[in-house]
């Protein structure tokens, strides 16, 4: 465990030194601040806009920094040959992958935390309340990014960084949109065989829409803690799926 934490700490420090991440964070923070200045609508629409745009900005920001941070983590180490002295030490490949994953996750969580605090403050400024749904939505964006970064890490072991980034983006949007469409296909399938294929796709691919609470944040519909916990465990279990897959792939990878 100590070795994993050492790798994680080192990865986190390297990520902190990457200036373009800070630029993305500052840019997102400015977009969120600008959203709150849209004052030419009536108040109901104004708050809806703020919530809509800021939630979209937070989700896209999370996705962007995840792709930027994760896709080049392991391939970068291999390309720069910095991985060889590490592998010569008493460090398992699984420990290396877990350390890398934890380090990047710490950085993603830190940045999303900053954006989340800004979002909560803006809504508090406009509405005078700390919105519970927003807190739940932000915590689920964290889980979503934990899952998404494990998926990116897994893909980065198979593909080159540009291909990995492209495929990750495609998978991100597909995983957000598959729910309704696959449900529609399952309902409309003519044979049991095709229905089972659609069901397999539906259940075996991560459903990122489970973490999307934007509608509830906007409409104020109640979101139970039980739901948040279920979605959280769902995210963690899929993260474990992708991390184990990454460990299996990395164990067999020729360096």
């Amino acid at each position: 465990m100590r070795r994993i934490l050492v790798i994680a700490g080192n990865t986190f420090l390297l990520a902190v030194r990457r200036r373009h991440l800070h630029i993305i964070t500052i840019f997102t923070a400015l977009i969120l601040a600008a959203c709150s200045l849209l004052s030419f609508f009536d108040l109901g629409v104004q708050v809806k806009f703020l919530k809509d745009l800021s939630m979209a900005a937070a989700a896209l920001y999370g996705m962007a920094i995840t792709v930027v941070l994760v896709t080049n983590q392991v391939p970068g180490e291999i390309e720069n040959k910095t991985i060889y002295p590490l592998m010569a030490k008493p460090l398992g490949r699984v420990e290396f992958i877990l350390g890398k994953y934890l380090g990047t996750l710490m950085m993603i969580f830190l940045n999303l935390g900053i954006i989340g605090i800004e979002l909560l403050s803006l809504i508090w400024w406009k509405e005078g309340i700390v919105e519970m749904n927003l807190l739940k939505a932000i915590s689920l964006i964290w889980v979503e990014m934990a899952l998404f970064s494990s998926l990116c890490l897994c893909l980065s072991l198979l593909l080159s960084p540009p291909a990995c980034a492209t495929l990750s983006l495609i998978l991100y949007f597909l995983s957000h949109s598959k729910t309704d469409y696959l449900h529609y296909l399952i309902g409309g399938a003519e044979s049991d065989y095709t229905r089972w294929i659609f069901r397999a796709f539906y259940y075996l691919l991560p459903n990122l829409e489970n973490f999307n609470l934007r509608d509830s944040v906007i409409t104020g519909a109640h979101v139970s803690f039980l739901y948040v916990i279920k979605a959280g465990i769902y995210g963690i279990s899929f993260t474990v799926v992708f991390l184990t897959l990454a460990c299996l792939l990395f164990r067999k990878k020729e360096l």
Partner: protein
Amino acid sequence: MTLKLPVLFLSALILSVFLQVSIDSERKPAAPVFEAPEELLLGFLGGLSVTIADILWIRVDEYFHGHEAEEGHAHRHAGEAPATQEGFKRITEVMPFLRVITWLDPHFVRAYQVGGWHLAFNLNKPDEAEKFLKEGLKFNQSRYEIYAELGKFYLEKKGNPLEASLHLSRALEHPVSDAYEKKGLCILLAVSLERQGRLDEALKTWRMAGGIDPADMLIKARIEELEKGKVIP
């Protein structure tokens, strides 16, 4: 170690399948707004569709405001009636935008309200307005706004006080944060009840409106008239 990872992989996958089943029972996927393949195209936009809807709404608002500035009506908003033939033309041009906004974001209640109002009262297409508002209601049953809009539509356009009172009552069952909006809904409900001859219920509703704004002299006068039995339904 050789077996541990595949076992972990499989057990996590099975757990996530069970959790998805459980999540689905709590969060039923929304009925598709479109039939495929449009739904798929929209789906590819993912969460961006809502943002695009917002941007389109900004365009709609700018369109109204821009022309108002030209006409000198500084305070006209997207939902108000056109004053001129030019205004009528403008609404006709903006309607497709409102349609697209509601396709992209079925929870954009304001777009349904504005679209329904213009269809019914300015473009004189009551059947389309009813269909549009009912579509909005399908996606926003936890909000009061579209119930209220349908109530106004049935009362003022269709002359159907029974349907109006049903929708306005449903609207008032939901939380209405703006006190003046709530007072307005109570007044409309009271009027629709009066028109059905349900005077006792109407009196109760007028009193509810009076409770929200005790200084309103018109409400006071109406309550007195009803109490003295001077009202002809």
